[in-house]
């Protein structure tokens, strides 16, 4: 009993988020038309969960018979997911009502997805990793198709669901083979005997299948087919959430299992990761050039960003890992902000947003134009914004580890990306607007965008705030 209490306290961020989602479900069930209150309760509860994460940060260890990780890495990643969810919920207040999808279930699903992400990123047993992944994914399948009257949303969620469940099959088969070879699903126990099993074909096949599952979830080429369609069809704020928090949790679990903490494949997947990385960077950046829809362009850019982060995973040194963590945080603020601006434009235009829809935004709405430019510059990786330092740390660590060729590909493809990001800025400032009507943005949406922008600037000017913490996580 003492043990149960202790374990519950050590996993407080997860517990608080689960309780919070239950509270919001009850609020939604018993009080009609309380969507606004639900959003406020969710954000307040997420603040408590973040406080719990800070409080549990020093409690490094394991809980529930070594099934979940507590403190350190788990707490830090929890804060990341909570930040993403809070920004998304704030942005969604304006957006959902205007697209006719102001469902209270949105908040419940976002909160449950966050619990899944936390379990995914802190599982020390492959079965916890799997359940976390599924809790997150099932919520995201529904969120992607939330505007159920729109055919694009139906299509996005169907594709996401079918391909996601397909990838789950591979992920699970990988776990089954590893279980058969190692006799356990506990990561610590698997890692202990990993070197002895380095030649076991059953074990290697399991690791390969697991790798396929992870590559699918982070959206790396050649497992990226779902990304553009789902990101385009899903509601913009949901896309912002999927492309940042969900991707961050997939990367966090990926690093926990394969790279940083356990390295169950014993360094044998570096080359595969490098290949995935090159393919993602090249295909993502090249195809993004030809896009006319801004959401699709950002989707391909998100594939490219997954490629940059995979450089860090291929290098696999502590410096590279802390670079990837910084990149994830930076990308979270940048991309949620960018999709937030897209969602506002989408409300104005009442249609699928093309890059041309941004014409004249810089003069029509100076603040929005400036914020969008900021996010796009950060995606390009211009100093002193946070996107620059993310790339800098990863490339630096990769060169130190001898991956110079990978870094060269990374820098060259980043140069390609300048073209399509800056095209949007050019359209915003040097193209006159057509018959646009400015839809007022409420304080909540503005606050969320400004918070994202503040994140991009603060972590750009003071990157050591994060890297100092990231270095001490394990």
């Amino acid at each position, binding site marked *: 009993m003492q043990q149960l209490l202790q374990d519950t306290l050590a996993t407080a961020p997860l517990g608080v988020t689960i309780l919070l989602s*239950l509270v919001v*479900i009850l609020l939604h069930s018993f009080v009609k038309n309380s969507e606004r209150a639900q959003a406020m309760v969710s954000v307040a509860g997420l603040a408590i969960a973040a406080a719990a994460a800070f409080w549990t940060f020093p409690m490094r260890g394991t809980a529930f018979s070594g099934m979940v990780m507590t403190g350190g890495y788990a707490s830090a990643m929890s804060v990341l997911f909570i930040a993403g969810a809070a920004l998304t919920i704030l942005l969604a207040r304006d957006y959902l009502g205007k697209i006719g999808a102001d469902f209270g279930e949105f908040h419940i699903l976002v909160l449950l997805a966050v619990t899944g992400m936390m379990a995914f990123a802190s599982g020390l047993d492959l079965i916890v990793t799997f359940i976390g992944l599924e809790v997150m994914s099932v919520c995201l399948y529904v969120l992607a198709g939330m505007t159920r009257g729109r055919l694009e949303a139906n299509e996005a969620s169907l594709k996401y669901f079918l391909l996601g469940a397909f990838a789950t099959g591979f992920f699970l088969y990988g776990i089954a083979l590893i279980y058969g070879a190692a006799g356990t699903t506990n990561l610590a126990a698997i890692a202990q005997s990993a070197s002895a099993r380095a030649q076991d074909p059953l074990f290697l096949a399991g690791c390969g299948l697991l790798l396929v599952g992870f590559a699918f979830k982070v959206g790396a080429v050649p497992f990226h087919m779902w990304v553009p369609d789902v990101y385009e069809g899903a509601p913009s704020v949901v896309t912002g959430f999927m492309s940042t928090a969900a991707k961050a949790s997939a990367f966090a679990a990926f690093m926990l299992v394969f790279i940083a903490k356990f390295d169950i494949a014993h360094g044998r997947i570096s080359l595969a990761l490098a290949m995935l990385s090159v393919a993602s960077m090249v295909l993502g950046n090249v195809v993004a050039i030809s896009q006319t829809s801004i959401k699709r362009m950002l989707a391909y850019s998100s594939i490219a960003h997954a490629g940059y982060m995979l450089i860090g995973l291929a290098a696999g040194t502590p410096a590279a890992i802390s670079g990837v963590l910084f990149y994830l945080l930076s990308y979270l603020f940048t991309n949620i902000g960018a999709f937030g601006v897209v969602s506002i434009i989408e409300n104005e235009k009442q249609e699928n947003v093309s890059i041309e829809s941004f014409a004249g935004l810089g003069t029509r709405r100076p603040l929005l134009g400036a914020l969008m430019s900021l996010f796009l510059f950060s995606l390009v990786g211009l100093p002193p914004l946070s996107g620059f330092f993310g790339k800098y740390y990863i490339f630096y660590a990769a060169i130190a580890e001898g991956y110079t060729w990978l870094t060269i590909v990374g820098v060259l493809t980043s140069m390609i990306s300048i073209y399509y990001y800056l095209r949007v800025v050019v359209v915003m400032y040097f193209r006159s607007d057509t018959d646009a009507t400015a839809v007022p943005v409420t304080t909540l949406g503005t606050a969320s965008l400004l918070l994202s922008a503040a994140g991009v600037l603060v972590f750009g000017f003071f990157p050591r705030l994060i890297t100092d913490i990231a270095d001490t996580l394990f």
Partner: protein
Amino acid sequence: MIESYIPIFLILAVAVVFGVVSANMSWLLGPQRPNRAKNSTYESGMEPVRTAHDRFSVKYYMVAVLFILFDIEVVFMYPWAVQYRNLGLYGFVEMVVFIGILLVGFVYVIKKGALQWD
């Protein structure tokens, strides 16, 4: 090895013979005098009015989906029930938490009216 399967083959043979014989016995022994009323779908019942290949109400679907969800959760209670004494208070508290979470979902379902038939 193979001898131990003989009873199974015997049972299989008996089952097949019994099934075939009893299914055809009435056709072999009974008198056959068909008429129009006898050939209708329900001999003493109502006349069927239209085709059975019709779309079913979405309510059946809602109930079916909810049934799958709540039905499968019982699977976690079997191992717990078998090991109840060994797990003690710890197991009991965990099961209360589990059922509590399910209950919140159930309240949501009821309040949403998913189980109302009309």
